[in-house]
């Protein structure tokens, strides 16, 4: 595996790990029958810097960043999810 591929894999592994940890903490807050996840002491930069910055970015920007880092699949075409009329609340 090339070093670029290795870096990309490492970036994805680490970012997913800390984003999931943060999401579990938020979504699981006050949920019955859950406990605190085990957390290592390492990963301070990921937790204190990467996660908050990632969360502040809009999804469209994150998608663009992932595409430009070539984290998304190439050679694939998703079938069209045909949008209908933009949704509007039905009349009361």
């Amino acid at each position, binding site marked *: 595996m090339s070093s670029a591929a290795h870096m990309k894999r490492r970036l994805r592994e680490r970012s997913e790990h800390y984003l999931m940890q943060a*999401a579990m903490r938020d979504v699981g807050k006050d949920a019955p029958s859950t406990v605190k996840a085990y957390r290592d002491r390492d990963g301070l930069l990921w937790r204190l810097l990467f996660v908050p910055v990632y969360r502040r970015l809009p999804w469209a920007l994150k998608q663009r960043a992932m595409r430009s880092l070539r984290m998304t*699949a190439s050679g694939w*075409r998703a079938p069209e999810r045909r949008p209908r009329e933009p949704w509007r609340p039905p009349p009361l």
Partner: protein
Amino acid sequence: MSERLIVIGGGGAGTAAATIAKRVNPDLRVTLFTEFPDIAYSPCGIPFVHGREIPKFEDLFLSTVERYVEDGLDMRMETTVTEIDLDRGTVTARNTHEGFDKLILCTGFVWEKPNVPGANLEGLHYVKDIRAAMEFDKLLDGMKRVVVHGATPLGVEMAGNLGHRGLQVEFVDEGPWVLSEVLDPDVAEPVHESLEKRGVTLRLGTKVNEFLGDGTRLRAVSTTAGDLECDAVIVCLHKLSNTALAESIGLEIGSTGGVVVDDHMRTSKPDVWAAGDVIEVPHGLSMLPIRALTGSHAYAQGRTAAFNAAGRDHVYDPVWVPWGLVAGDYTIGGFSIGETLATAMGIPYVLAKGVGVSRARYFPGATRTHVKLLAEPDTLRVIGGQIHGGEGVKERADFLAFAAKRGATLEDLAWMENIYSPPIGALFEPVAIAAQNGLAELRTRQPATV
């Protein structure tokens, strides 16, 4: 001379690739290499034999080697391919070189091993090979306490089944709830209850520090919750793509560690396809590659590779991943993403939740079906969901994954047609109830514009 296709791997993807390629192009000479002595059995059924819900391992076999030979396949059982030479078009197995024109790699996965001291002790068991499972099952008869390490789908099935068998089960995972990489906490709650009813002790938020042994034999597991004495540990961590051969011939490896393929299952080298757990494929919503999907995904990918290797043109779509499993006595499922994953990725969503019944409520056996849908806030197109209850979870997850792939909205689902027949379906479909509730909730949040 007709072309020769070599398939490496005898799991779901490999057997599908070999049989379908031969069926599509009978002139093709197809050879399948597998390192194992058995083929065409369901490894996914192994936990249920251990749990004695399925009487015997032989019931898991779906076909025989002889049957594949009758279909015209050249079957090389217990034959490990050790080398591939793409320039010469040969594979090496048992020190013999065999030529090929086309190659399909279906080398599957290997289990992640615990990265702690003692991981090589006797007594750590991995669920994969049916013969090893048969031997382990005999040992289970003499055991009292086991630790299941990893609350993955396999871990949940093993814990529930070994509890059902009457063993004392300690279920250890670092996450805050079971299946926490997939499942949302509200859906995990009934799973916890169901597992505990089967005698499973949940040790969540708990890290395994070391496996302790007497000599070479496992005695206990040292965890952050204390030492757990046990007779065996069933390791159920992540599946890792088995890419050793793929890397040896320079195939591109992606960000998940799987082999990169296009929508025809073509790898980065000409005349080489790959399918199953060794590859990564994009998720339909994010187009981010994912891997280690279900057996049905592996089979469909094997079929796709076969069609294309055999001269047809077949496209495999990005996946929306319907999934489901029985956890204890409770059924859970879903598709695409849940709230936890959407939150982690930062994908905006609105929620639609509802509870219905699986049959007419007066009909014996009716169970509650909980449905949670995630939809895009602007278009209300469905992007994910989770379902739990009794019967009908699988069918709803399958349907919703397909509906999402085609762009269905909450509005579409709120007005969907459904079967009403008391023994099999209630008047009000739980999916439609959830969508209607979601729309009603949204109406209360924003003023009508019409």
